[in-house]
């Protein structure tokens, strides 16, 4: 039972990755996007690291953590686009007919989205290191940081899959992208949380991405804090979004 399930999931993942890497027009922008943000933030705002009370050891590393979380979650969203495109073109219906357990389609896209992260992580980390980023955390700390990014990726993929399976059209793209983009920017992007002012301060304090970002930055600095909260929030988001995606799958099944 498990074997056919994962066989379907692997097939979906392989097809997704094959389509992705054979279409540079789709893949390259998604790789350049995080690099652009890394360059714009770490390059243009590095003086912000000297603001009183900033207190983080390296501004490029500080921005790298945000870009890592951002790139990982957006990779999940881009996989959602692929689900929508497949259903728009009729491929989604054929996949539903061909699988025993249809949730393996979503699992397959999740495996694909997580796999594409590897290259994104290598490129973004490589560019950041070449740009002079210093790493204070140990290997275990860094593994923890990347695992948080992976959990963000899974949550974003499940959210986007829920939208894609309900609308089954690429026109729902903004509905997948905008909420994720907004929630990312409502976290402490430029400065630590204690330096935020105005309306964004309470918004960031209730934003689940803040917990992920703060924990990732603490791991990068080699002084882990808030890990329990971060993993708890990530697990909660994945659970809620899994229910959302499964209900989306039921909606797609009902629509035929």
């Amino acid at each position, binding site marked *: 039972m498990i074997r056919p399930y994962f066989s379907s999931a692997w097939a979906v993942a392989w097809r997704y990755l094959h389509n992705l890497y054979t279409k540079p027009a789709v893949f390259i922008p998604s790789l350049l996007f995080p690099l652009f943000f890394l360059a*714009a933030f770490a390059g*243009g705002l*590095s*003086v*912000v690291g000297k603001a*009183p009370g900033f207190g983080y050891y390296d501004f490029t590393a500080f921005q790298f953590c945000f870009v890592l979380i951002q790139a990982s979650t957006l990779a999940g969203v881009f996989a959602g686009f692929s689900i929508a495109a497949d259903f728009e073109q009729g491929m989604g219906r054929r996949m539903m007919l061909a699988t025993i357990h249809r949730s393996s389609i979503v699992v397959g896209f999740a495996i694909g989205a997580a796999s594409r992260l590897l290259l994104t992580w290598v490129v973004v980390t490589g560019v950041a290191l070449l740009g002079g980023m210093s790493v204070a955390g140990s290997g275990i700390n860094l593994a923890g940081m990347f695992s948080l990014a992976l959990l963000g990726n899974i949550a974003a993929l499940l959210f986007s899959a829920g939208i894609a399976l309900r609308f089954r059209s690429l026109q729902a793209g903004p509905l997948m992208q905008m909420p994720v983009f907004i929630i990312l920017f409502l976290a*402490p992007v*430029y400065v630590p949380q204690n330096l935020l002012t105005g309306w*964004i301060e309470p918004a960031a304090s209730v934003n689940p991405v803040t917990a992920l970002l703060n924990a990732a930055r603490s791991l990068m600095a080699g002084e882990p804090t808030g890990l329990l909260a971060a993993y708890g929030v990530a697990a909660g988001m994945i659970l809620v979004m899994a229910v959302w995606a499964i209900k989306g799958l039921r909606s797609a099944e009902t629509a035929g």
Partner: protein
Amino acid sequence: MSTAVATAGTAGGSILSVQVAAMAARSVVRLLRQPAAIIPSVIFPLFLLGVNVGGLNSATQIPGFPTDSYITFALGFTFIQAAIFSTMNAGQGLAQDIENGFFSRLLLTPMRPTALMAGQLAGLVLLGQFQALLYLAVGLAAGADFAAGVGGYFVLAALVSIISVGFGGIGLIMAIRTGSGEAVQGMFPLMFVLLFFSSMAMPRDLIEQDWYRTIATINPISYLIEAIRSLMITGWDPEALALGFGIAIVLAIASISLAAASLKGRMLK
């Protein structure tokens, strides 16, 4: 609109102005009927302004920062961001006309290319003015300074209009050359890159990275932002305003000329 064009055909000397008015009215009505196209271009710059102000307010404590209010500093960027959105709106409108065949039908009428383009841009100028007023009102309500006073508002409105025409012209070029709304939308990331690699978030003299400062210095967007910013922070800065207006006028002339040349080419096909 067809009535207006027909009337224009019998009106003699004022044909062009009637045609422009007819196309402008269509452009404005179409814009007003598409809140889904307008709302993001109005709301998104305000959202980014809120995020930047909340996140970067502490930057005002950096020695050499030109003001103690980050919203005063950041407000100028909002106008330019909105103008960049207008690139997409103008291009999208014309591309839609090309895709659905309306443009081909227009070519069968005595409509002049100048009237077609001026009409397309009229809606953008109107939207630009609305945005200028809204952003200034929101900025002032949130505590921003406007050192140039009431007179400065008219200078701001004039600059925003020219910038809207300039960026709108770029959208028209894309639409005419590709005839595809998707291609026009594909330009957005490029425009966004231009925006981010400017002095939008920091004064150029405070940018530490040499490569970034060099890009921001050769990026014309920096001077457009700095012209508007000067009205907020210093009041009347002739150098900043001359650079801003100069670049905006060159951009408008270049983009409209290129759009006109592209339009002639398309009409010949």
